[in-house]
């Protein structure tokens, strides 16, 4: 997503202009987080499940080469055509060529964060292929010409009145109507016509099984199934890290995925695609797009264990108050902030700093990714590589100089206390970022060092 040169803080400022909306956004996501807690706490074996899922994913990453070969062989044996894409561009070209071969210029697509990451819709649009996103939330943001702001709840930033307006304009619903039941029914009719008439369907992949060559797609709406079972051509796009060794491992992941995401015990549909139906062709596009590089980064490879549940976003105090669009990347929030710098360290240098490092993300992660530790490590890499915000880098240098020199440190403390006391206007203004949303503290009469010296003498 192109946001010009604006960074997370500047984009958050835009979101924060409407304080009531920030509160609403914050509360809505906290409501989802609370549902996750209830679901997790209802299983006494929850922590065992997390640990097991984490270890299975560790095994996958350590043996990925073998699993990829095994999956490819089994999928092909099942009659699925397997493609390999080194990057987003190649992925888009492969999808386009399959559609061209089949003479298709209008398609339906269910949710796939990978295709967002690769900007597939833009690419196909430029090549005169119409893409209809069929997940309700994704269709809403598509009509609004916006990217999704959340990987599970794509239009969580939109109010029902805004959706009503969009539907009035594009789907001809009644002006001013904003009842979710009415709007969903209108979307159902609108999208049914697309499902019935489109010859090709793209879906994402939640899990793929090396042992059997099958892949699993989870939805609540049934849109992936409606698309795939009615289309002559089904293209499933997946990152190479989505593999699981054995079919039975799905039990662990299907138990934790939706409980972590929305607090449901499972999605309505967990569909296992193993073979194309008679007369249908089925394709899988295996995409790298930076994943093999991340695999080689010891401190960051754990991020590839992610199952895209969004629990880290829902719990994040920064995400909830800055909105998904402030992250200017396909996957927002804490997990997006450790994935994005791998793809483009310069463009996403701001994201690892968009965190309080409170660690809540790591605590809720169902596959135990040490998200907040990686955020902290990315900061160090980014500063070392020279991609840090120059203002921040300069401030850090000044701090380093001050803190490593006792005389300067003592003088700086004195000067600070003097200024706060005698010339508060020099810090209580817009130029001081700390003054924004905060009152500056009352200056103490003396520093701890001075107090200690004084009291130590009295002993």
């Amino acid at each position, binding site marked *: 997503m192109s946001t010009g040169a604006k960074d997370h803080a500047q984009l958050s400022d835009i979101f924060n202009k409407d304080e009531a909306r920030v509160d609403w956004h914050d509360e809505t996501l906290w409501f989802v987080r609370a549902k996750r807690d209830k679901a997790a706490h209802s299983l006494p074996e929850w922590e065992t499940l997390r640990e097991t899922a984490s270890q299975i994913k560790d*095994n996958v990453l350590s043996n990925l080469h073998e699993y990829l070969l095994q999956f490819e062989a089994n999928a092909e044996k099942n009659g699925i055509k397997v493609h390999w894409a080194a990057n987003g561009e190649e992925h888009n070209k492969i999808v386009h060529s399959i559609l061209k071969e089949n003479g298709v210029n209008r398609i339906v697509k269910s949710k796939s964060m990978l295709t967002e990451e690769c900007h597939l819709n833009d690419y196909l649009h430029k090549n005169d292929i119409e893409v209809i996103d069929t997940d309700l939330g994704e269709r809403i943001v598509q009509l609004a010409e916006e990217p999704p702001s959340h990987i599970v709840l794509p239009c969580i930033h939109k109010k029902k009145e805004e959706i009503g307006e969009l539907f009035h304009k594009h789907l001809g619903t009644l002006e001013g109507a904003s009842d979710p039941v009415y709007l969903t029914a209108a979307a159902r009719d609108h999208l049914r016509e697309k499902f019935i008439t489109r010859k090709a369907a793209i879906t994402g992949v939640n899990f793929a099984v090396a042992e059997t060559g099958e892949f699993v797609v989870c939805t609540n709406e*049934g849109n992936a*199934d*409606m698309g795939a*079972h009615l289309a002559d051509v089904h293209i499933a796009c997946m990152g190479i890290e989505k593999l699981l060794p054995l079919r039975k491992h799905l*039990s662990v992941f299907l138990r934790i995925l939706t409980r972590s995401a929305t607090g449901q015990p499972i999605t*309505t549909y967990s569909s296992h695609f193993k073979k194309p139906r008679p007369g249908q062709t089925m394709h899988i596009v295996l995409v790298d797009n930076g994943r093999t590089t991340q695999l*080689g980064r010891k401190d960051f490879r754990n991020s590839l264990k992610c199952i895209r549940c969004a629990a880290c976003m829902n719990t994040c105090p920064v995400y909830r108050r800055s909105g998904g669009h402030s992250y200017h990347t396909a996957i927002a929030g804490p997990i997006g902030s450790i994935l994005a710098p791998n793809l483009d360290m310069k463009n996403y240098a701001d994201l690892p700093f968009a965190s309080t490092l409170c660690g809540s993300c790591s605590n809720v992660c169902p596959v135990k990714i040490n998200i907040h530790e990686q955020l902290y490590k990315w900061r160090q890499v980014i500063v070392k590589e020279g991609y840090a915000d120059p203002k921040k880098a300069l401030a850090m240098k000044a701090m380093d100089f001050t803190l490593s020199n006792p005389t300067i440190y003592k003088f700086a403390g004195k000067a600070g206390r003097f200024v706060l006391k005698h010339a508060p206007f020099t810090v209580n203004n817009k130029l001081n970022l700390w003054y924004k949303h905060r009152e500056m503290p009352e200056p103490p009469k003396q520093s701890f060092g001075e107090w200690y010296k004084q009291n130590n003498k009295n002993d």
Partner: protein
Amino acid sequence: MTSREEILAKVKTNQPGPRPLPADLSTVPGGMDSLTQFKTVLTTIGGAVVEVTNFEEIAQYIQQEFKDKKRLISTLPELTSVTESGWENKDPHSYEDVDLAIIKAHFGVAENAALWITEDLMHQRAVPFICQQLAVVVNKADIVATMHDAYSKIGDAEYGFGSFIAGPSKTADIEQSLVLGAHGPKSMTVFLLG
């Protein structure tokens, strides 16, 4: 070098040292009785439970509750008296106006009220998704406790397509308000047989 070779080579170089697979998990004993839990969870997620002892009762229920519906189809030979005949082997798009589809499930899972249904029980893959309302028959004796039991039961079974279906199609994409009937069935009735 093709992208395939390039990706595989890079994976081989960059993947960390071996990490063992953890021990398999199984159902933790001492939970709620599976049948009771299945019924509770299904009701919570918007499904309806109907307990029956034989197929005549199912046929009766369908005639009574769905009498205003035009197009009823079923894959179950026991229900031919109350459903359309000769609906099979058509273009899947033609099932768009099916009001009610009644199919069978291999088994149900108590912890999430999901029913495991493979292609052979659907007749065509589109059927349980495209119908306006879905009804599924499952034996009471075939309710297992958790997904661990579910995959033990599936084992290495062969199928082209299979799905766990839990309740009616739903969405909460508009301000987190739950609406039943997103793209698929607006309701789901489960006949617990036995």
